[in-house]
């Protein structure tokens, strides 16, 4: 039989030697076989699934979700919060619509406040100078200092139970207690001078005002308790040509408030006081207000020249201010000339004006950067980071976040957002007294102490924050007035016991007193205030100067052009 031989196999085909051809055929068989197994298909599928669940992508926590009522403790405006908690961590923040003042609104930063505890700039260790230290060392250093000389305690959020601890300590130690107030609070200091009523007891009755003249105060942009004015403004016919509430914004640039206000009056930068004097002159000149003395020394022409508005325009503005009353003037800061306009307009103590709301509040001592000859300065975490005491004393600074370059000798990690029990006194500018309690909702992941806790641990005779809150609750309950804003609004008469009252407060309910309207009070304005310095301070929300920003805030200024980026601390 004749056999054919493939030409390649002439030599290579001998025996069972593995040839290249065999390898190719084997490979083809293996490839065909592999296609009939799950290998390619399953790997393809699994790799896709892997790409949907990349292990380096963070996964949200699992666990029971609950919603707790609380308050924002980042600044003294005391907005009501609903905090979503999952597995013991705060996973979401929303405004609490039952809160009588903030009414469910919050400033943009608050929506990411729960992330602040994880901020990279979170202060995690006790720091002494540039080196790490311990709480024990800090305590002994402070104890030594307070033995040696007076201690100045500086608070940024007065009226809290913790403030009371600080004040008590300062009193006992022989030092002093001073407050760095927010501009909203400072704006009341002229009235405090003229009437003797403490600034913290005064408030604006926006709800009944018909015209609000704002001298540069960012009323619609985080001024005061944000929700209060924005909701009021929105509900009073925003955008209409004749709204129920006329908002006249006097501003040197088209700020957010100016842009959305009923009227924007453009003036030269820093000429608010001058315009206030001119406006007072125009009001008196046109007999738009009852005759009054003293009268401003500045003439209309001078005012006009400084503000960059024509005399006629100022007169027109004066007519506009009183066209719809009650009219209320709001200053951005403690500018007496602007405050005096309210005296002229008769807004003090009247409906739609400036009203006192609580008794027994002490006038605060404003903290100056020059402190004198203290042995030590204790700075509470609520004090703005920019506040730097100019003093040769040993500085103990509490802070939850490290805002960068500082002259503090001791930097002590304070509780972060909702990590500490605190109470919330009336926010600046409120027309009625309020009170709330924010318990520690989340546990701190690092060792923290508030200034009050720190002092209490040094001096056992000091009352603790919890105790003070307790007694404050009891005092409030005993007064039997106002309402409790919880799940429902209940008059305090309906609350059965002090226990139940406390319980509800601890669950996030707010107690609010009634606004005391038509309680006109005497005002001794001896002379028309001279023009003061141009307005310097801006509110927290507009100047964007919290110690740190939540990372998400970059949505507003970095990932969009909505706002100006924050100015970093030097």
């Amino acid at each position: 039989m004749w056999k054919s031989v493939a030409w390649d196999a002439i030599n290579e085909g001998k025996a069972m030697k593995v040839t290249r051809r065999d390898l190719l055929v084997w490979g083809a068989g293996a490839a065909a076989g592999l296609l009939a197994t799950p290998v390619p298909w399953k790997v393809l599928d699994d790799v896709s699934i892997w790409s949907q669940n990349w292990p380096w992508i963070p996964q949200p926590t699992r666990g029971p979700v609950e919603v707790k009522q609380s308050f924002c403790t980042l600044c003294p405006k005391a907005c009501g919060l609903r905090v979503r908690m999952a597995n013991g961590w705060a996973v979401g923040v929303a405004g609490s619509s039952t809160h009588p003042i903030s009414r469910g609104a919050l400033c943009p930063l608050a929506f990411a406040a729960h992330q602040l505890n994880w901020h990279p700039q979170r202060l995690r260790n006790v720091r002494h100078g540039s080196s790490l230290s311990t709480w024990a060392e800090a305590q002994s250093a402070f104890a030594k200092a307070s033995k040696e000389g007076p201690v100045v305690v500086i608070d940024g959020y007065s009226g809290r139970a913790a403030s009371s601890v600080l004040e008590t300590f300062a009193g006992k130690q022989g030092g002093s207690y001073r407050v760095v107030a927010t501009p909203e609070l400072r704006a009341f200091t002229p009235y405090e001078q003229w009437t003797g009523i403490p600034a913290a007891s005064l408030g604006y009755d926006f709800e009944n005002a018909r015209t609000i003249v704002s001298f540069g105060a960012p009323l619609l942009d985080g001024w005061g308790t944000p929700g209060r004015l924005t909701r009021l403004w929105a509900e009073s016919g925003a955008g209409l040509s004749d709204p129920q509430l006329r908002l006249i914004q006097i501003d040197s640039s088209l700020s957010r408030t100016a842009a959305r206000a009923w009227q924007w009056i453009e003036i030269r930068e820093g000429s608010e006081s001058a315009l206030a004097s001119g406006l007072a002159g125009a009001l008196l000149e046109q007999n738009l207000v009852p005759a009054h003395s003293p009268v401003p020394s500045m003439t209309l022409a001078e005012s006009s020249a400084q503000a960059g508005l024509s005399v006629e325009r100022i007169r027109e503005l004066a007519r506009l201010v009183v066209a719809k009353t009650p009219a209320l003037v709001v200053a951005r800061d403690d500018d007496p000339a602007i405050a005096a306009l309210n005296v002229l307009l008769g807004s003090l103590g009247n409906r739609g004006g400036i009203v006192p709301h609580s008794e027994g509040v002490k006038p605060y001592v404003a903290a100056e950067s020059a402190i004198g000859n203290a042995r030590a300065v204790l700075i509470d975490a609520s004090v703005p980071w920019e506040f730097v005491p100019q003093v040769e004393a040993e500085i103990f600074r509490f802070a939850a976040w490290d805002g960068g370059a500082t002259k503090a000798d001791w930097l002590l990690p304070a509780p972060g957002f909702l990590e500490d029990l605190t109470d919330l006194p009336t926010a600046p500018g409120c027309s009625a007294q309020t009170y709330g309690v924010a318990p520690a909702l989340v546990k701190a992941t690092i060792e923290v102490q508030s200034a009050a806790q720190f002092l209490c641990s040094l001096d056992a005779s000091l009352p603790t924050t919890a105790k003070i809150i307790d007694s404050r609750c009891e005092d409030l309950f005993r007064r039997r007035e106002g309402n409790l804003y919880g799940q429902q609004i209940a008059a305090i008469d309906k609350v059965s016991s002090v226990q139940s009252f406390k319980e509800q407060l601890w669950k996030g309910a707010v107690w609010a007193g009634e606004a005391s309207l038509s309680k006109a009070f005497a005002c001794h304005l001896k002379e028309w205030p001279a023009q003061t310095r141009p307005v310097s301070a801006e509110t927290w929300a507009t100047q964007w100067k919290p110690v740190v920003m939540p990372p998400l805030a970059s949505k507003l200024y970095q990932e969009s052009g909505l706002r100006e980026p924050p100015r970093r601390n030097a």
Partner: protein
Amino acid sequence: MSKWRNSFVFAFGLAVALLLGWVVFPRVLYSQKHQPLDFLHKTHAEKSGVADCAECHTIREDGTFAGLPAVEKCAGCHSERVGESKAEAILVDSYIKPGHDTPWLAYARQPANVWFSHAIHVKRANLSCTECHSTYGESDRVRVYEVNRISGYSRDIWGHSMSRLRRAPHEGMKMSDCEECHKQRNVEVGCLGCHQ
């Protein structure tokens, strides 16, 4: 000799590939893990009189599913050792007394991008647990937990059968399994009906 050589070599390659693909591959793809202790559903159902799955696997008031019970639940009965078994010792000493949650390996856990509401399926659609979880609730031994090395999924999601052609009833929890059931019951939901 050479006439069949090619076929033989081809078949050899084919066989090797099939062997690798069907026998070796599944073993390589899935790594095996063991539960922290031998929990027996059967014992709890028969001896301890736990009649309903929901006694431990509760649906909370807000509709969310509690899933595997927290250690407090176990502590309700096992605050002290109830029996002599090794598992009992582990449970009480390692988890209940120190108050740590038992690190159960959840066979049926879906990834973070899946939103599966037990409340809707159980309370509204009245599906029984066995509809998806088969009869694990009556199991008398602890299964080995197999996890896909690539995707990180429990093997129960794909199902034990590699080909998925001959699956036991209720085996597999892939998206296509959900879809199949939804189609049978004529329930239409969009992507975000089941994803989050």
